[in-house]
């Protein structure tokens, strides 16, 4: 959407460069531009009909959302990679089962698959969140080292704060902030009352905020 707005403001001579930049960004794995639900549904239809490019766009639209959602519930990046891979495979090979007529957004349907995949993993081996999470194994060569360090600190603080929540609270905040689901969608997934979800969400949000701020202060004092 940002790109579309930028395109409208640019002189027509510059547009091919923007398209080129966009194509290279997709090629090298940069964030895909967020699509409206209607455009996502169109991609689903095309992917169902065997269009591989549509399937790949659908994948790129949602893979980061799945990863950041399950990462908050699991103990390591490696587990989150495995669960993301399994969830995306299940979704892409079961597109026929998705029905937008039931009022479920595609992202919510995909998140249900991701949460079920995570729970299966929990059943096999009950993991505990590590206190600090994992820092990236190797710095991203294309990234800015200072920004990478900042993100690594934020991620460590968030993962640390998440360890102090109850499993159900962790699941709810991950669905809210990782997958951007609303309380009604979360309630439908977890078979709870929306009012109950809102109550837990509010409590968890306050606790997370306080803990993260306390961690930031203690790090600031130590530095």
């Amino acid at each position: 959407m940002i790109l579309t707005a930028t395109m409208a403001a640019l002189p027509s001579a510059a547009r091919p460069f923007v398209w080129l930049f966009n194509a290279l960004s997709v090629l090298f794995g940069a964030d895909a531009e967020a699509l409206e639900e209607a455009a996502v549904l169109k991609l689903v239809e095309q992917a169902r009909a065997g269009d591989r490019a549509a399937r790949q766009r659908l994948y790129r639209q949602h893979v980061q959302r799945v990863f950041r959602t399950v990462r908050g519930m699991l103990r390591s990046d490696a587990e989150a990679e495995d669960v993301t891979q399994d969830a995306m495979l299940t979704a892409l090979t079961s597109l026929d089962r998705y029905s937008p007529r039931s009022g479920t957004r595609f992202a919510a349907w995909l998140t249900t698959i991701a949460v079920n995949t995570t729970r299966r993993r929990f059943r096999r081996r009950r993991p505990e969140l590590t206190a600090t999470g994992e820092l990236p194994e190797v710095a991203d060569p294309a990234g800015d080292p200072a920004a990478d360090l900042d993100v690594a600190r934020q991620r460590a603080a968030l993962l640390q704060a998440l360890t102090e929540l109850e499993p159900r609270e962790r699941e709810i905040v991950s669905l809210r902030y990782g997958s951007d689901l609303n309380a009604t969608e979360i309630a439908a997934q977890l078979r709870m009352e929306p009012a109950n979800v809102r109550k837990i969400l509010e409590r968890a949000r306050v606790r997370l905020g306080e803990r993260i701020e306390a961690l930031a202060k203690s790090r600031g004092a130590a530095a």
Partner: protein
Amino acid sequence: MNDTELRNLWSALEPNGRQRARIETRVFEWLEASETSIAGEWLGLLKVEPLTALAYASVGAVSLLLLTPIGWIAVSLLP
């Protein structure tokens, strides 16, 4: 912290470039493999690597020629 701040903070949990590439490779390799039939793989091999396909076919033929008499002998030795 409000909703927006937490949502922004959650982006710190996103996969890095290497992780994204690793997941994507595994997902699409699996999809590719599950959609390619064995016959299709053989036809692809004939098209792309005719010499390798010829080598495989030759080894198969020689194996059949050698193993058939060995099989007869083994059967005749059985009580």
